[in-house]
């Protein structure tokens, strides 16, 4: 028997389908995918989610596309204002009741959104090469960054609510070291050449990351740097005892091995002017960092024996053996100050002071750095500001310090230091190192627009500049010097923008919509407490005399045990989750309709399937496939209204016996509510 064909219009397209077809299936034939959460073709429509609603002309009611049948001459709008509003409301209601983390707080708080949870798990499972590959999806320097990163991820780590965060950064460099030792790193795939040329100024973490990405996408990339080696501040700022040059070198070599052209000892503005440089390439990224020490602006600054912090550090690295004498004061409280004071100890100074105008609490340097400096004999002078550098014969002989006290909090909530009138102190010194900040050097880049601060002005989203084809990122742009992973984050965006630009498009990042849980210590009360791994270190008395690495690295056992502490906060199903995909599609506001959450619990196991009620959207697919496809009928709905949940007959041991462990339920779950474990 011939089935009658029906012609209708969907989103302006004419569609012909056999009578009895649903609007959903008809739209599919026209290439229109109507969002749906509870529909499965084999099971037929169910009608729970209301996400598939469409508007049909001359029909007063909204129709569910999954079940409504086509009719001749029907005019269907799948994206009319009303259909979108109803669909969006369903998704906002679901998101407002969704107590799940799409991604772990670690990943969300890493400026570059490195997939920490994933590589931590890989390390836990002993898959170290996989872990390195995971990091390299984001940036090329796991061993280096793992050593130096102030790890904002760890500050956000949920394990803080149990006892202490996962040692995410140390695990990262553990894996990189291990893979380097084992020589089993996964090769990195490079796409077919595009024939496009990109020139990058600066071989610091920003420039290297952008080069690494662009090379993988098939572009011809050249990195130009004024210094003899690549690495930027990681090499010429951060001292050897924190990050051995050989380790950094191995990672930069790997970038070169991808086909990136490294050109060192080449300074833009000296060896070529910027305009000329631009003309050699289809696109340019300026990532020249912040290489000028900020002046203290006090009398005596031009005396011999006064150093800029980064200049002193670079001199040590390049083997200039700077003569700083026996008594040295470092002015400043940041990481540069810490590196400078500990380096001063190592180059032979007998007495090293850090002069800081606030107290220890306000110091921007990492706490461990301060502690380690103290262990190495550095003396801290808090609440002092340099007033004048005293000289004798054109050489530093001391410093007069203004005594300070803490006043009103500033806009960031840090109490402002104010001078105590008339109170001064003098100390005798051989040299003074000013580590109060660094900024970019605009020389040679006059064509590029600047911010009022003097940094290069770049778009905060895609890091383009006003010059076509010129992008800028890292310490040199906008807010200026920050941390390496921040520069890397920008470089990733800039690389995407360059890639789009080279292909004739424009890249605009969109902030993804995510579900995030709001948890407190209380939520983890019943978790067993497991101590965080302790990093073995060389004793202060030994390490302060040389530049060998202070930290000795985690053992394989310690690293794996540490990685196993991870709570695996992010959803295992994030990539495949239909709920979050549609929430992004309709730009659902996840907070607007927040209220109580429906009752939620985990830990119900049916053989190898774990159910997390908090992420369940009650699409009922698991119940239906279990009954109709697996022919088991082990699941059912319990309760009414908002308190409705799906319950397997888990209390009944017979249910576990009957469950065939076919995973049909988990495979069909549109969210991450069902997880296959073991």
């Amino acid at each position: 028997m011939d089935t009658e064909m029906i012609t209708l219009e969907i989103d302006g397209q004419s569609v012909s389908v056999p009578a009895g077809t649903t609007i959903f299936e008809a739209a599919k034939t026209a290439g229109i995918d109507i969002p749906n959460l509870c529909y499965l073709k084999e099971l037929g429509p169910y009608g729970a989610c209301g996400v598939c609603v469409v508007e049909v002309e001359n029909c007063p009611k909204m129709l569910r596309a999954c079940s409504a049948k086509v009719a001749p001459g029907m005019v269907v709008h799948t994206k009319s204002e009303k259909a979108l509003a109803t669909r969006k409301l369903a998704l906002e209601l679901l998101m407002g009741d969704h107590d799940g983390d799409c991604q772990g707080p670690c990943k969300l708080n890493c400026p570059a959104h490195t997939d920490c949870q994933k590589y931590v798990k890989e390390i836990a499972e002993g898959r170290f090469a996989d872990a390195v590959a995971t990091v390299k999806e984001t940036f090329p320097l796991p061993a280096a960054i793992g050593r130096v990163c102030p790890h904002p991820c760890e500050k956000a780590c949920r394990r803080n609510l149990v006892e202490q965060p996962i040692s995410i950064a140390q695990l990262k460099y553990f894996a990189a070291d291990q893979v380097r030792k084992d020589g089993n790193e996964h090769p990195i795939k490079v796409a077919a050449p595009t024939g496009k040329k990109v020139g990058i100024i600066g071989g610091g973490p920003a420039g290297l990351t952008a080069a690494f990405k662009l090379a993988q996408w098939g572009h011809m990339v050249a990195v130009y740097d004024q210094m003899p080696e690549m690495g930027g501040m990681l090499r010429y700022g951060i001292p050897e005892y924190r990050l051995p040059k050989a380790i950094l070198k191995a990672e930069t070599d790997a970038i070169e091995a991808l086909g990136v052209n490294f050109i060192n000892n080449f300074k833009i503005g000296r060896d070529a002017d910027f305009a000329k440089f631009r003309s050699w390439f289809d696109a340019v990224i300026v990532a020249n960092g912040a290489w000028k020490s900020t002046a203290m602006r006090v009398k005596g600054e031009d005396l011999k024996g006064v150093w800029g912090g980064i200049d002193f550090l670079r001199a040590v690295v390049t083997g200039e053996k700077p003569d700083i004498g026996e008594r040295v004061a470092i002015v400043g409280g940041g990481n540069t100050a810490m590196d400078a004071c500990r380096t001063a100890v190592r180059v032979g100074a007998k007495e090293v002071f850090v002069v800081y105008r606030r107290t220890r609490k306000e110091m921007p340097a990492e706490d461990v750095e301060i502690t380690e400096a103290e262990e190495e004999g550095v003396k801290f002078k808090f609440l002092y500001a340099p007033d004048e550098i005293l000289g004798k014969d054109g050489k530093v002989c001391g410093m007069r310090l203004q005594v300070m006290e803490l006043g009103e909090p500033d806009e960031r909530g840090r109490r402002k230091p104010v001078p105590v009138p008339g109170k001064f102190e003098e100390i005798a010194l051989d040299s003074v190192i000013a580590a109060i900040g660094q900024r970019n050097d605009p020389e040679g880049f006059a064509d590029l627009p600047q911010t009022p601060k003097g940094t290069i002005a770049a778009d905060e989203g895609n890091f383009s500049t006003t010059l076509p084809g010129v992008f800028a990122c890292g310490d040199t742009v906008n807010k200026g010097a920050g941390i390496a992973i921040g520069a890397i984050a920008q470089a990733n965006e800039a690389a995407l923008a360059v890639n789009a630009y080279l292909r004739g498009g424009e890249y605009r990042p969109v902030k993804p919509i995510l579900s995030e849980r709001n948890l407190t210590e209380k939520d983890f009360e019943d978790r067993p407490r497991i101590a965080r791994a302790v990093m073995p270190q060389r004793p202060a008395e030994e390490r302060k005399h040389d530049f060998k690495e202070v930290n000795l690295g985690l053992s394989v056992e310690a690293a794996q045990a540490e990685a196993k502490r991870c709570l695996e906060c992010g959803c295992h199903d994030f990539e495949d989750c239909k709920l979050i995909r549609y929430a992004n599609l309709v730009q659902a506001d996840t907070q607007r309709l927040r209220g109580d959450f429906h009752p939620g619990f985990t830990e119900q196991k049916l053989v190898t399937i774990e159910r997390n009620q908090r992420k369940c959207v009650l699409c009922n697919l698991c119940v239906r496939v279990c009954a109709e496809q697996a022919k088991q009928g082990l699941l059912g709905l319990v309760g009414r209204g908002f308190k409705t949940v799906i319950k397997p007959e888990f209390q009944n041991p017979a249910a576990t016996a009957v469950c065939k462990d076919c995973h049909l339920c988990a495979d069909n779950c549109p969210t991450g509510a069902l997880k296959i474990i073991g």
Partner: protein
Amino acid sequence: MKLVFGEGSCGIAAGARKVRAAVEKLNADGAVGVGITGCIGMCYLEPIVDVYDGGTLVKRLVKVDEAAAPALYEAAKTGDLAPLAKYEISADDREFLEKQTRIALRHCGLIDPEDIAAYEAVDGYKAIRKVLAMTPEDVIAEIKVSGLAGRGGAGFPTWFKWNAARNAKGEQKYLICNADEGDPGAFMDRAVIESDPHSLIEGMLIAAYAIGATKAFVYVRAEYPLAIVRLEKALAAAKKAGLLGENILGSGFSCDIRIKAGAGAFVCGEETALIESLEGNRGMPRLKPPFPAEKGYTQAPSNINNVETFANVAWIILNGGAAFAAMGTETSKGTKVFALTGKIKRGGLVEIPMGLTLRDVIFGIGGGIRDGGTFKAVQMGGPSGGCIPEHLLDTKIDYKALGATGAIMGSGGMVVMDSHTCMVNMARFFLDFTAKESCGKCVHCRIGTKRMHEILTRITEGKGKEGDVELLQELCNGIKAGALCGLGQTAPNPVLTTIRYFRDEYDAHIREARCPAHECAALKKYEIDPAKCKGCTMCAKKCPVGAITGTVKQPHVIDQSKCIKCGQCAATCKFGAIVVG
């Protein structure tokens, strides 16, 4: 003489059985006739006893207590009814019945529901006899002429549903009576089953014959034990009389009716959820189409009607569809039964012809507001319906006219509210009901009603935010559009109508943390009027949090920071010194 006791659920609850037992104890010699009947519908006057002389009602006695038993017995025995004068129904109260037109309730409170002969004596089972001689098509045509529409809430033309089921392809067809009556405060269907079960059975037989169904179910709310018992008795009696089962009255037509006790959820009254429940599944609505007429019980063609709908059928067959259609308006024919409750002087069951106004019912029949209060609004259709304010009291009882106000005809719930009712709180109450009764299947209803309830709760607690009303409206419209079944689609009605007519009350709660009706507990302020306070210390002793202080014989004061607004003090004070603001 014969004493007939009104023994519907409400009469029994008021003590009718105890009074009857007391009379029967005295009546060991059987000098006086004693009988029962169902519910006459004047709940506020129960227990009611009717005195019959021969076949005629000579006196209706109301609020008869056990103490009255000797007098009752004596009077009935001697025929001297004068001593019973103080129990006699007042002229005012008689009006309550006199102003009604009873079709669906035609026998309620008049015949013995447990005696099939009593039903047959009032032309019972004549209609089915007449129908068995007609073609099913003619029966449907007669119902079409009557204009009867479904009384379960949706008001869909009954003939159309019957016709669809008749024309649907299928060997086995089913007829279902929806007696789930889940609307809180409604009891029309209960009254019909308890008081006149045979008229339901007869109506169902006629429908079964018309559509070609040989199996029928009555899905009765589980909380109606008396209705179930009476219906069981009636079914047994009908079966014995050859009116039910195989080859009814030798016509060749067979039909069996079975009772199924409901699952105790409001949504099970929704027809497709009811069918799921009948099939032994969790009561959750199915997608429509397919409609039950096509794929109903066990996927077979099924027709489902409400009790009241069926209760009209035999009357229509006997009196003709035209007689039914003669009553009412252009769009609504016949009569409708309402359960009039709330702050009304005379509450109970009211059956009136369509087309009367709300004012006719509330003031004419119901006698207006109780305790001298002022009318504020009437909620029609329970949790699925809406409220209608004072200025629309002249709206006609008509599907269309009521719909235009934002309310609905509904199944018959009519709750009258006076000035002490907070409309926001009332909306919150209904949303609490629907949110809890949502079956949980669809997103808009399951989560949407919960969020609406949360917002309404915060408003009644004085924690509402600017924009909450707009958010509620958005949710209302979205839920109406997105919910799968009638429960969700109508749940927003109480909120939409209270916003439409009483927006100022919402604003007062949100902007001034004030409840104009002084009903919302969290917004109440208890203060002592020093002029009235005698310093008796009673309130201070009662206050559970020790918020009241003062010395004996001196005016007391309430510490507002301690007060938890429990209202104990106001209830305790004998001098009316506690002012609630």
